[in-house]
């Protein structure tokens, strides 16, 4: 469970930071930046998470080792962190972009009229409002991510579900443990999504 939470937390934080940068790039006036960000988001969104994880499990460590020239690195966990962060960043970028676009244009003009630079307007005026509106969506995405972390199974890393499966396989209690882990996920995610819904009502 610790590992599940660990991956979720790292991916949510890193994904959100990177996602914000990507969203701002995508909306920026520079053709190059917006194309690059758009390409990144489309690429990651059109490939299954399992495929991304396999890339980061089988190929990227090999690539890094060969480039750095140190064959004895064990970066499986690090690789999982990076894979989830990069993958989630593309999803967060879309949510954040929608959030930024929901703030009215007048706010940008107002910021610029007050003598702020473009970056200051974005940081101090647009993003705070956008984030307040996006909180429910961002949290829902975090719950989805929490469920998706079970897919580190394909990398041979033992998260909560992996441990449950391995224990069941060893003791011949596979049926019970799979059902048990399903129930645990159900309870956690149900409580979390109910809380998010309540919060959404409060904000709206």
């Amino acid at each position, binding site marked *: 469970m610790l590992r599940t939470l660990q991956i979720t937390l790292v991916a949510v934080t890193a994904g959100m930071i990177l996602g914000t940068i990507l969203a701002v790039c995508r909306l920026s006036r520079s053709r190059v930046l917006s194309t690059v960000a758009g390409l990144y988001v489309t690429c990651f969104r059109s490939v299954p998470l399992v495929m991304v994880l396999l890339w980061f499990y089988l190929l990227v460590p090999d690539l890094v080792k060969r480039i750095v*020239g140190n064959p004895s690195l064990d970066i499986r966990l690090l690789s999982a962190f990076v894979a989830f962060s990069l993958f989630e960043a593309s999803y967060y970028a879309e949510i954040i972009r929608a959030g930024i676009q929901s703030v009215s244009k007048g706010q940008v003009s107002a910021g610029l009229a007050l003598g702020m630079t473009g970056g200051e307007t974005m940081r101090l005026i647009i993003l705070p409002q956008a984030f307040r509106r996006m909180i429910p969506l961002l949290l829902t995405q975090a719950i989805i991510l929490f469920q998706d972390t079970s897919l580190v199974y394909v990398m041979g890393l033992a998260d909560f579900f992996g441990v449950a499966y391995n224990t069941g396989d060893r003791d011949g209690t596979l049926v019970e443990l*799979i059902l048990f882990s399903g129930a645990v*996920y159900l309870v956690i995610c149900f409580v979390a999504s109910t809380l998010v819904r309540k919060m959404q009502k409060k904000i709206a």
Partner: protein
Amino acid sequence: MKAVALRVGDTTLQRRRMATILAELDFRVFMQPAVGGGGSYLTYLLYGLGLTLLLSLSSWILAFAVGSLIGVMRTLRGSVLPRVGACYVEIFRNIPLLVQLFIWYFVLPEIVPFFGAWFKQNLSPEIQQFVSATLCLGFFTGARVSEQVRSGIMSLGRGQYGAGLALGFDTAQVYTLILLPVAYRIIIPTLTSEFLNLIKNTAVASTIGLVELAQRSKNMGEYTSRLYESFIAVTILYAIVNLVVMLISRNLEKATRLPGFVGGKK
């Protein structure tokens, strides 16, 4: 330790190593005959793509049926049916897909009497995997589709329902003749993204041993030790499928557009 090993050191050396890796790529590997016969590795991958698409379509049919049923149930009056629908959605949305898949594949054949034993003994492993994956993805996606169907019906407003009843239709007729035809048109874009998600989710089926596209890219990499080439090819294949589905849905949306509704002519 890691920080030391990963520090940016001799950049020219690293650039040279990167160049060697790129130079070593050899896409002629796809023309080699595949292990186990049946043509080249290209056809091996394309067969996997076919299986992925077959799995996606069969689960989509199930998901669409289940989603419509549950979505309609949630908009009905009364207290039992909407609650049953809500329970279904909560259960299937709050358990990870991987866990659900393992429940369908490992758990259900064990605990369902008679039929479970028959399922395990009389069917080949491939059929078992395919059936489990279809049911799992179908019911999982069904929960998501039902949310879209519900919001589509809700967006029409109660007036249409009342008007239908006033014209002498019964509830079933109101839904099949008035509400659903319009609701489906409204939700085509969101249904498309659910379908794209479904295609991507079929990759999870590789965990129970179904040899679909993602699994084949891994296998091919292992047989030929050409992992980079096979992964690049499969990633591109997924991207192409995504693009094609998106184009089809855009045309479908245009073809079924109704005047007076969002996106339609005024």
